C-alpha cells in the first residue's frame, strides 16, 4: 500500500480527524509535489477505511508503456463521449413522452420552450455522431497497432460488442425524434432486420412489438434506447476497462525493448531524479 513519506499541503487542509495518524504536520515540499501526492493521500485515506485494498492507487500509478502517444487517448475520448450522451440523455428524458401521439410534440416543446432545451438536444444529437466516429477511430488505432493480438484478444472481442451496441444506440435513437424521415427509415430498417435468416423475423417483431409498426413500437424503442442498451454498454465498458487495468495498454508496435532502454539510459544521465518523489511509491505499488 502506498504510504507517501513526505508531507502534503493538501493533508493540512483536511480537518484533524481526516488526517492519517502519524502524518507530519509541517512539511517542506513545494506546491507541485503536494499536488502530485494529493490523490495518493486521499486514496490512502479511503483505502484505510475500505479494507485497504489499494486498487485505486494501483490504477492511478500503474505505469503506461514508453511511447504511449495521442492515439491512445481515443479510447477514453470515446468513454467521455458516452458519458456526455448519458448526461444529456437524462435531461432529454425529463421532457420526452414516449408515446406515438405525444413524442413529437414533447420534442417540439423541449426545443422551443425549455430553457437551453435546444442546446442540450443538439449536444445529444451531435454527440451521437461524435461517439460513432470516435469508436471507429479507436478501433482503427487498435487494429493498425496490432493491439488485438495476444494477450488482448478478449479486449478486442468486447470492443466489437461495444461497436455493435453503439450502432444499436444510433439506430434506436433515430426513431425517437418521430418525424417522417426517421419514422419511415425505421420502418425500412426493421423490415431489413426481418429479411435476416432464422432470428430475423423474431428480431423485427421484437423491435416493433408485433408484425406491424404499432402504438407499442415507440415505447419499445425508447426502453431499448435508454435502459437496455446503455446498461449493456456500461457493463461492457466496465469489462473493457478492467482488462485495460489488468493487461495494460500496448506499447507502440515500433518500439523495441532494447532500444527503449538505451534511450532511457541516455536520458536518465541528463535528468536528475527530481521526478521520483511520487513514482518510487508507484514502483512498489506496481509490483503488487
Amino acid at each position, binding site marked *: 500500500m502506498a504510504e507517501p513519506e513526505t508531507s502534503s499541503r493538501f493533508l493540512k487542509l483536511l480537518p484533524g480527524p481526516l488526517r492519517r495518524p502519524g502524518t507530519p504536520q509541517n512539511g517542506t515540499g513545494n506546491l507541485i509535489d503536494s499536488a502530485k501526492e494529493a490523490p495518493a493521500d486521499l486514496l490512502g485515506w479511503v483505502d484505510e477505511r475500505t479494507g485497504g485494498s489499494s486498487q485505486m492507487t494501483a490504477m492511478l500509478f500503474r505505469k503506461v508503456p514508453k511511447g504511449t502517444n495521442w492515439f491512445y487517448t481515443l479510447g477514453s475520448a470515446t468513454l467521455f463521449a458516452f458519458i*456526455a450522451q448519458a448526461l444529456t440523455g437524462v435531461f432529454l428524458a425529463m421532457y420526452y413522452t414516449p408515446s406515438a401521439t405525444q413524442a413529437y410534440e414533447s420534442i417540439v416543446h423541449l426545443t422551443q420552450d425549455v430553457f437551453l432545451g435546444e442546446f442540450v438536444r443538439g449536444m445529444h444529437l451531435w454527440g451521437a455522431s461524435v461517439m460513432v466516429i470516435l469508436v471507429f477511430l479507436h478501433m482503427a488505432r487498435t487494429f493498425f497497432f496490432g493491439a488485438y493480438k495476444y494477450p488482448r484478444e478478449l479486449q478486442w472481442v468486447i470492443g466489437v460488442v461495444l461497436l455493435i451496441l453503439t450502432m444499436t444506440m444510433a439506430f434506436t435513437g433515430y426513431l425517437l425524434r418521430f418525424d417522417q424521415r426517421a419514422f419511415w427509415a425505421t420502418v425500412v430498417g426493421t*423490415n431489413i432486420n426481418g429479411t435476416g435468416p432464422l432470428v*430475423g423475423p423474431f428480431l423485427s417483431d421484437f423491435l416493433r412489438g408485433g408484425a406491424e409498426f404499432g402504438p407499442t413500437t415507440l415505447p419499445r424503442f425508447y426502453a431499448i434506447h435508454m435502459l437496455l442498451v446503455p446498461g449493456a454498454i456500461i457493463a461492457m465498458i466496465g469489462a473493457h476497462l478492467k482488462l485495460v487495468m489488468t493487461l495494460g495498454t500496448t506499447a507502440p508496435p515500433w518500439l523495441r525493448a532494447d532500444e527503449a532502454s538505451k534511450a532511457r539510459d541516455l536520458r536518465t544521465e541528463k535528468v536528475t531524479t527530481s521526478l521520483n518523489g511520487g513514482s518510487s511509491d508507484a514502483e512498489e505499488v506496481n509490483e503488487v
Partner: protein
Amino acid sequence: MNRAEKEAYLREYEVLKKKGKPFFPYAVAKDSAMALIVVLVIVLMSLILGTEQGPKADPTTTTFVPRPDWYFFFLFELLRIIKPYQLVPIATIGVPTICMVLLISLPFFDRGPERRPERRPVASSAGCLTIIAMAFLTYVGASAGPPTEIDLATKPELEAGKNVVLSSGCLGCHVIGDNGNHGPGPELTEIGVRRSAAAIERSLRVGPDLMPSYSNLDADQFDDLVAYVSSLRGEDEEATNGE
C-alpha cells in the same frame, strides 16, 4: 504465436512498461485534454448546427423519403449497389453479418507475432480498403438526393397517382424510366407488363420484403397509386431509353 513468442512478447512488454511513466499524471493529462476537446466539439456543433426536426411522423401521409441517419448510409448504399433485388437480403443481412463475424474472430485467425502495420501487408491493406470503401459508400449515400421527378410522359388522369408515387419515396428504392435508384427494389418502368393490377395492389398492401406497406394510405390515394403503377408499360413511352 507460439509459446516462445508469447513469452518473448510478455518479457519485452514488461521492460517497456517499466520504462514508461505512471498513468497519473501523464496519461491522465492527455486524456483530460482530449476529453475537453470532445466536449468542446460537441458544444460547438450543437451551437452552430442546432437541431433538426421534420414534419411529424404520420403513417397515413406519404411525404417521406426513407433515409437513415448518416451512420447507416453505407448500408443503404450497399442496398442500392446490389442490383438483382433477389440478392437484397444478402446485402442487408449477409454483408454486415460476415463483417461482424470477421471482426470478432480477427484475433483468432490473425495470430502472428508481428505488430507493425507496415510488416502486416495483408491486414493493413484490408484495413485501408475497408476504410476507403466505407467512406466512399457513405459519401455516395450522402450525396444521393431524394429523387422527386418522373420524366416519363403521363396521361392526365394518372397525374394523381404519379404524385402519390413521387411523395411516397418509391424512387428511393425503384427505378421508373430514367429516375430513381437501382435497387433495392426491382425496376418498375415496365411493371404493368410483368404484373397484373391485382398483383401490384397486393404488393403495395403487403409491402413485400423490406418495402413498407402502403395500406395506410387513404382509399382514393391508394387507388390512384395502383392505377398509375399498373399503367407503367415502358415501351409505349418515348421517354424510356436510358437503361
